[in-house]
């Protein structure tokens, strides 16, 4: 299960597992973000290519609109998966 909590100041708190079964639920929430944002991964345990695709699309969309999108507090395994995709070099990951 995945829980997504969007705060008023552009903070997106991700809790649980971001897998393909959660993509349909997550996509409209991420698409509704229209300002610079920070995705907090502190309580995210797992992500697959389906979750990463939504993060990358959001990243590109916000960048094109002149905003920023930062990813923070990734656990080591999730950070490794972003590394496998070469995204650690091209995205803002703290």
């Amino acid at each position: 299960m995945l829980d997504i909590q969007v705060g008023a100041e552009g903070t997106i708190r991700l809790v649980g597992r971001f897998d393909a079964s959660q993509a349909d639920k997550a996509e409209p929430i991420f698409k509704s973000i229209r300002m610079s944002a920070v995705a907090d991964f502190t309580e995210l345990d797992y992500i697959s290519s389906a979750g990463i695709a939504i993060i990358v699309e959001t990243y590109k969309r916000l960048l094109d609109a002149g905003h920023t999108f930062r990813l923070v507090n990734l656990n080591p395994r999730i950070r490794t998966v972003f590394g496998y995709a070469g995204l650690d070099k091209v995205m803002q990951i703290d």
Partner: protein
Amino acid sequence: MAERQFKRDVQSLDTIFDFVADFLAANGIPPSNSFNANLLIEELFTNMVKYSKGSTGDVTIGLSRDGPTLVIRLVDHGVDAFDVAAAREVDLNQPIRERRSGGLGLHFVRRVADRVEYEYKDRTSTITVTKRLEP
């Protein structure tokens, strides 16, 4: 090999992850191995769901332990061939704006698995991946 059949639907993932957790616990394998096992199975399973739309049958997932190695097998009946081991490489040097969102799943499989084998016979795809277990 512990085997179970799962409906060809991404919503099966929760029960698949439960199956993996139960197998690891029953075989004394530390739960730290679940992330990579889940990732390998999810990417292969969702690939079958996406690209074998003609088939309505269940997908069989099998798990076994061979000493220090986890063996994962997915069997899909009544489908066209799709050699996951030969899928195209992802260009990791592409700028973010030019990145396509697809193709990453099988790239992850190749990065995480120690070995990926594909067999196609009698319209049945069998994918076997092995992954060395973390202590």
